[in-house]
């Protein structure tokens, strides 16, 4: 492509945006609004996903040991658990440590324990962390078989509900994002088609004087890309503002809620939305022009 041709394309697309001022504004706002909604859902889905994986990673098996074991036997059990597939960490919690934690959890009501005196009814235990939550059940069953193990506990129901919830959130999120993306594309195709329709005579004349299809397409594609990019910019600014406000609020008052930190998460979201805007604009133009090229 010659530089003068590229220049011509850019001038043409800018002229077209200016000439169809109201229409361009409509496309711009459509892109902005669609991408804004898309962005909100991406933030929502990614954060739910993040929370789910944080919760998933917290899944662990607690192994209670019989009180009669000698130290060597305890160590032996520990090594055996470590060798099980999927086990990433094994922490030994001595009964004294368990009592301390229990006291801490009781807080002001520690007095309840006074009756026990020096006696400690809590057993020695292991906290076993696993690499994948699907492994919890088989590993727990395997540990329960070991000699000297009183019980291997895990929140079976909680874990299984969590699985189905996160799976649903993921599937629903992907479907929703696809759907919104398509809806945005559809609206943009229709808006650009109107500007193309207004110029169909021009396209016809271009074909008669021997313009190639790509020569005709380029100004429209540049127009679509510009509108898509600007629309995405309009969506990205309030979205970033909103997320930094949200994370600020949550960190202050709901610190236990594991939100994704603003950096680099919002950077990725913004880059994605800008690319989506550009892509949707370009694709929308190509689709809109297609019908009018058959002369």
């Amino acid at each position, binding site marked *: *492509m010659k530089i003068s041709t590229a220049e011509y394309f850019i001038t043409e697309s800018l002229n077209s945006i200016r000439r169809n001022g109201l229409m361009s504004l409509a496309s711009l706002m459509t892109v902005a609004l669609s991408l804004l909604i898309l962005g909100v859902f991406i933030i929502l889905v990614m954060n739910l996903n993040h929370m789910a994986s944080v919760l998933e990673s917290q899944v662990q098996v607690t192994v209670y040991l019989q009180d009669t074991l000698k130290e060597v036997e305890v160590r032996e059990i520990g090594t055996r658990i470590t060798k099980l597939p999927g086990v990433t960490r094994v922490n030994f919690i001595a009964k004294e440590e368990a009592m301390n934690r229990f006291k801490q959890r009781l807080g002001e009501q520690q007095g309840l324990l006074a009756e026990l005196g020096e006696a400690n009814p809590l057993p020695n235990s292991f906290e076993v962390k696993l690499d994948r939550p699907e492994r919890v059940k088989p590993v727990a069953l395997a540990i329960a078989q070991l000699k000297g193990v009183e019980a291997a506990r895990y929140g079976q129901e909680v874990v299984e509900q969590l699985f189905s919830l996160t799976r649903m959130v993921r599937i629903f999120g992907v479907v929703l994002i696809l759907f919104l993306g398509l809806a945005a594309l559809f609206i943009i195709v229709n808006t650009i088609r109107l500007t193309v329709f207004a110029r169909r005579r021009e396209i016809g*004349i271009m074909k*008669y004087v*021997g313009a*190639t299809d790509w*020569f005709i397409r380029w100004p429209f594609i540049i127009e679509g890309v510009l509108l898509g990019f600007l629309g995405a910019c309009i969506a990205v600014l309030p979205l970033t503002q909103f997320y930094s406000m949200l994370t600020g609020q949550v960190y202050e008052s709901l610190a236990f809620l594991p939100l994704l930190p603003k950096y680099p998460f919002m950077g990725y979201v913004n880059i994605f939305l800008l690319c989506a805007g550009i892509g949707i604009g370009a694709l929308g133009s190509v689709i809109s022009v297609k019908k009018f090229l058959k002369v």
Partner: protein
Amino acid sequence: MIHLNEVTKVFDDGFVALSNVSLKIGKGEFAFVVGPSGAGKSTLIKLLFREQLVSAGEIIVNGRNLTELQPQEIPYFRRSLGIVFQDFRLLPDKNCYENVAFAMRVIEASRRDIQRRVKHVLDLVGLLPKAKIYPAQLSGGEQQRVAIARAIVNNPAVLIADEPTGNLDPETTWETMRIFERINQSGTTILMVTHDKPIVDQMMKRVIALENGRITRDESKGVYGYED
């Protein structure tokens, strides 16, 4: 230049627009195509610049066999033709100069060539002083002259005109015809579809008459031959 060999065009609804038409138009010729409405004149034009494809037979224009032309070759083929329509088909938001330059931009001519050629052809049709004026402010005759300038700006070997004087008054018609004649004298082949009896009768060029999709008459110095 233009060679039709037993060309038949049947539309999807079964209407036969052209039936077994054979025709040869040599380099530098000036030929009128006449005939009543629905005779197949417009179809002939559409076939000639490959807006439509023949149903049977073959068409060769400028040495290219249009039946074998790939879709992506069509634009390059059309650059060897100039086309003028009854309704001018100028771009309303471009001035005269830009309308003519447009045909050269499409083929990615250099800026210097564009300036030189556009000025030259606007001068040829007598509109150089109005180069900066928009089509809406021009008379019909002037608009058609801009369209002619656009059609010849790329030096086509063949100029096809579809009732170019259909929307013009008699005086402007003659002005326009003189321009066509000058273009023809410089060696460009011209094929003109027309309903204009006086110009056909007076110019004494080749006349090809089409009726019901068939050639009924082909005379080297013919007349219109129909009552208006």
